[in-house]
């Protein structure tokens, strides 16, 4: 009776289909591009996915509740700059404190978003479209056109992106990627096994019902935004560590990258379904496509975006086709079982 069909949730199937798409992309690139299937490619993608992936986790939490956070790019930039300037001013700041500072800064900005959305009842897209501009404005005024440079940072920050935690063959696991993976694991658990996590799904799935049932919808949405801000703050710290030179335009465009990751990762933009693992896989797939196109010798620089757009569309489309197809197999036996019972 309890076959795999009943054991598996649709989201898990979705994740599998994404893995399938990633494998297909890997095979095609591997066949077309010399040396593509190498540890180096893995290292490249993992390190560049670390930042977007971290932001995408937070974006997932927010999108699950049928909201969206477009201000994450500005939060990443603000935090990277702010923490960078604090570190430049006090090089003795212990690493833990720097991380805490980043997370708190991001959290504070997320709190503002959350308060306006949850308690001020302003639609999230309006709120965060506004704070996207406002946070950037604050950053530019705060930065006053100074640039944080690698030289002004304590060496442990700059070297963070050079270290490896462990290697298997040539495959290296970098601290930035490890931090993001840890966050994915934590939030995957939070979403699947905590009451808070399930409430995110419930609220996004049917906000009216959630209100009717007296779920603490406002508090939960607020928490989602705060967490999203904190994760974006963490990403800001990773950004600082990875790029070192931080200008006032840092992080611009990450909001769309994170939304793309979430969308490709199968998180429903109308809330209620999706996982952080899916979002990470989405970020991974997009980055893989980007990397592959970058390295494909036959493809000129000017063709890249057109192809990337097309591939993202195909990824979303095939994901939805695969999912629909799987759903149908899923539904059919249920019916057959019923009908045969009767006979």
């Amino acid at each position, binding site marked *: 009776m309890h076959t795999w069909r009943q054991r598996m949730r649709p989201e898990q199937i979705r994740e599998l289909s994404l893995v399938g798409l990633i494998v297909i992309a890997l095979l095609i690139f591997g066949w077309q591009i010399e040396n593509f299937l190498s540890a180096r490619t893995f290292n490249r993608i993992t390190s560049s996915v670390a930042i977007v992936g971290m932001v995408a986790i937070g974006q997932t939490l927010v999108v699950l509740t049928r909201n969206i956070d477009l201000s994450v790019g500005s939060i990443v930039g603000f935090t990277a700059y702010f923490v960078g300037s604090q570190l430049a001013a006090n090089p003795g700041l212990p690493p833990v404190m720097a991380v805490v500072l980043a997370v708190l800064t991001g959290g504070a900005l997320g709190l503002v978003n959350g308060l306006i959305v949850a308690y001020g009842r302003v639609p999230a897209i309006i709120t965060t479209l506004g704070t996207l*501009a406002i946070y950037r404005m604050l950053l530019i005024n705060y930065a006053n056109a100074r640039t944080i440079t690698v030289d002004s940072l304590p060496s442990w920050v700059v070297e963070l992106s050079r270290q490896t935690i462990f290697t298997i063959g040539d495959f290296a696991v970098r601290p930035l990627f490890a931090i993001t993976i840890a966050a994915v694991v934590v939030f995957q658990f939070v979403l699947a096994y905590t009451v808070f996590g399930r409430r995110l799904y419930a609220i996004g799935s049917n906000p009216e019902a959630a209100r009717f049932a007296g779920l603490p919808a406002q508090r939960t949405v607020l928490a989602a935004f705060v967490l999203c801000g904190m994760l974006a703050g963490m990403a800001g710290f990773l950004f600082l560590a990875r790029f070192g030179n931080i200008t006032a335009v840092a992080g611009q465009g990450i909001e769309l990258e994170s939304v793309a990751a979430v969308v490709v990762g199968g998180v429903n933009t109308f809330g209620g379904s999706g996982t952080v693992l899916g979002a990470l896989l989405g970020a991974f797939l997009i980055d893989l496509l980007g990397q592959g196109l970058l390295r494909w010798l036959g493809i000129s620089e000017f063709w890249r975006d057109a192809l990337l757009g097309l591939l993202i569309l195909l990824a979303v489309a095939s994901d939805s086709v695969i999912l629909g197809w799987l759903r149908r197999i899923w539904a059919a036996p249920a019916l057959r079982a019923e009908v045969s019972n009767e006979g």
Partner: protein
Amino acid sequence: MKAKLRRLLSWEGLLLAILVLVAAVNANLAPAYVSLNNQINLFQLSIEKIIVALVMTFIIINGEIDLSVASVMGLAACIVAVLFDRGVPMEWAIVVALLAGVLCGAFNGFWVAYVGLPSLAVTLAGMIGFRGVARILIEDRSIGGFPAWFTALGQQPLIGPFPFSLILFALLFTLALIVLQYSGVGRLVYVIGHNAAVARYSGIDVPRLKLGLFIASGLVAALAGVLLAARLGAVRGNTADGFELDIITMVLLGGVSIFGGTGNLAGVGLSILVILNLRNGMSLLNVTGNVQTGVVGMLLILSVLLPNLAQMARERWQRRAVQRKEVQTGVETSVSS
């Protein structure tokens, strides 16, 4: 309905009040603001965006979104430029550019309406992809030197002091207003935006309407792109880059719900005026671009937040009044029993 009407009126009333305030402050601080020339400039500088905002209003009320408009604008501009550069007569280049817009719209519309993918995803891909096609065409070149009549179209007054694009906008606005508020299509846009299933169960061809809206969006965006090329007199690969956020901001500030089904063009018209005048005033006062954007961002939030807070305060106050009464009656009952 009446209550809704009142609410709508108050939304638009709010925008109108803001507009009057902005205009008054501008006129006071920057005397140049009131000149006819400046008033025309103020439109002229954003004319392409506000033309696209009209059709974006339809799309958002319909419960969808089109993030690819700016890329379609850029693509149309690049097509005009590249074809012209290759010796195609300008008229034909324009026709091809508009057709390309229709194709882009049909492409988006197909995936959204007939395959059922979320428009956010489809047009996000379109935003990257269409810009990419423009890039393929124009690469790192900058193409200009268009015929005089073409650039005059974008830069010179046509009737009285009004340039072509402004007149076109006025016509399109009237047309959009009539279609959205007074036609059958407009009615369907609202019904589908609120609940597409109800429309489907009423025998309405939902996919066709959605496809039509996306095609209209592509066409209008392409038209705006051509106008932009005329106004700027030169085209590069990044022409119109990033316009989508401004366009969406205009629509949302106009009181159109991102979830579809509500909003109207009067609100959007007012919000366009508010944003343009606000930006113009700040620009005349040499406020930097970042602060301008930040101020518009704050306006966007506050315009929704403040009425909400007022409403909540009123509700709380009313409830408190009721409770006070309740306590009194409670006392009476307990005394009497």
